[in-house]
């Protein structure tokens, strides 16, 4: 790959699936058996983005938005229907050996470890597949195990490991060949808070040490906010946002939350000229104030009312995304 070229380039990436349609009930089943009707569904349409080497990018979107389909095209598992794609200088769908040696895909809902055997056995299989010699394998296992805080778990059958331990072992197996590009699809799925934090720390550490490029999808906003400065938001197969997480927040919510604690109670009407009153309880008021008028509004509030405490927050990103996606769902139905 020539220097200064982006690690991942997608131009007008599209994927259409052909799905069989079936009416419910017995008649529907009979009709489905005799004459199948198909419909083309665009899972991803015209998505373009560029990711530089070493970047950690969050990939957001509701279920069925096209995140996993995009990750699978990027890793060469499925062929795009249209557009151009380049990862580490390769066209992923060709699945060349040199390309596969540079990438990995970790899926939170699927595992490659052999169920009845300790993770070390699966890891050794991977070492052979990637042509890593015994000494180097040992060195890498001990380095990654340190980073992941894995010890005797590597010697216990996978079926006897907790979900968190299993995911850590899965990460070890997937990163043994030291890939330069990591595609992570819900790597913290189902993990408890501690295990989630451990996996996040590890990913940040891996990215720092090896300069790996990471594209991460997660339903836990905590993963994204902790790891990624930049996010791609994909919605109904199209790219809705590409940029900083903060910019997404301002785009989704042109308001900020202003929480006021007052010395004495005022009627709700007293605050309505400053913004939308979200909640009002005697001494506590929660206002939504337009970003552009935030400074003057806060100054006016401080002058007009005996304020004990004032806090300005962004509305939680989860709430913003939920309202975006449910608004779209309503407009779809209309």
């Amino acid at each position, binding site marked *: 790959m020539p220097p200064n070229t982006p690690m991942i380039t997608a131009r007008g990436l599209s994927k259409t699936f052909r799905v069989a349609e079936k009416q419910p009930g017995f008649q529907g089943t009979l009709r489905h058996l005799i004459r199948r009707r198909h419909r083309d569904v665009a899972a991803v349409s015209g998505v373009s983005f560029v990711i530089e080497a070493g970047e950690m990018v969050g990939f957001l979107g509701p279920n069925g938005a096209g995140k*996993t389909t995009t990750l*699978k095209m990027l890793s060469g598992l499925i062929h795009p229907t249209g557009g151009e794609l380049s990862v580490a200088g390769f066209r992923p769908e060709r699945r060349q*050996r040199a390309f596969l040696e540079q990438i*990995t895909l970790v899926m939170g809902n699927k595992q490659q470890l*052999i169920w*009845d055997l300790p993770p070390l*056995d*699966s890891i050794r299989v*991977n070492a052979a597949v990637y*042509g890593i010699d015994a000494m180097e394998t040992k060195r890498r296992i001990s380095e990654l195990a340190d980073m992941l805080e894995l010890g005797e778990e590597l010697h216990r059958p996978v079926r006897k490991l907790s979900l968190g331990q299993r995911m850590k072992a899965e990460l070890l197996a997937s990163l043994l060949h030291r890939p330069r590009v990591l595609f992570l699809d819900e790597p913290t799925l189902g993990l408890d808070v501690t295990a989630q934090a451990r996996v996040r720390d590890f990913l940040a550490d891996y990215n720092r040490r090896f300069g790996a490029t990471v594209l991460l999808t997660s339903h836990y906003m905590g993963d994204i906010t902790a790891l990624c400065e930049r996010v791609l938001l994909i919605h109904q197969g199209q790219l809705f946002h590409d940029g900083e997480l903060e910019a997404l927040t301002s785009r989704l919510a042109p308001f900020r939350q202003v929480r006021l604690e007052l010395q004495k109670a005022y009627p709700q009407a007293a605050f309505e000229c400053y913004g939308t009153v979200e909640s009002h309880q005697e001494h506590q008021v929660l206002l939504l104030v337009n970003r552009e008028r935030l400074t003057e509004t806060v100054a006016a509030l401080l002058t007009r009312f005996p304020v004990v405490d004032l806090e300005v927050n962004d509305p939680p990103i989860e709430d913003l995304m939920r309202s975006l996606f449910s608004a779209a769902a309503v407009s779809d139905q209309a």
Partner: protein
Amino acid sequence: MMPHRYAATLRRFWISSLESESEYQLNLVLECLAVVGNLAGSVFVLSLLFSGQSSLGGWSWDEALVVLGLYTLLDGFTSCLLQPNLSKIVNHVQQGTLDFVLLKPIDSQFWLSLRCFSPWGCPGLIAGLILVATGLRQSGAPIQAHSLLLGGALVISGAAILYSLWFSLAALSIWFVKVWNATEVLRYTLVAGRYPVSAYPPALRLVFVFVLPVAFMTTVPSQALLGAGSWHWAAGSLLMASGSLIASRWFWRFALRHYTSASS
């Protein structure tokens, strides 16, 4: 192709699958019992077929034993390699774990065909060899190096035909997902190979040569081992084996172009 990496990988594959299987020792006892039971049943049916006649479709009792031996050998090979590997392809497609195989820098057909080695087919392999040796010795046919060599090559090409058919059927799961029934039908059709093809009615014989080439798996190699091999049949068998291997490879690559991967 990197032979060294493939050899090291195969070694790791088989070590790990033997380790997995060693968790279930009782299986070995059960498998030995199953082989003995199956063999006893087949020999009994063969003896019924021979009752009141000294030949079956032109084959003597001892010659027919060679066919039965080769069938048992092939069945052992099926249990060692084909069944444990190829039957998993459907699961891989259904559960989406085929993704992991396709992401490895190694030939996916190699991985899917040789990932597991089940030791439980070994009793069948041993029993088959013993039966072939017994049949050959008792038939009185002269044991010549070239017939053994030709017979051996034909057994291998029979196994290659069987593998290719099975693999291609399993590859259909890329489109149809559930194809267990088709592979089961294939395995049960093989049972027809227990007896010489000439023992069947002409219509079935044609099916066993051209549609489901059971004839190439047991009857043709047995003829060669018994010194009655015809070079025409041998050439046909080798041609069919290489053709079907190439076809299975092409078909797998074609199927992968249509792979959509199970959704998450």
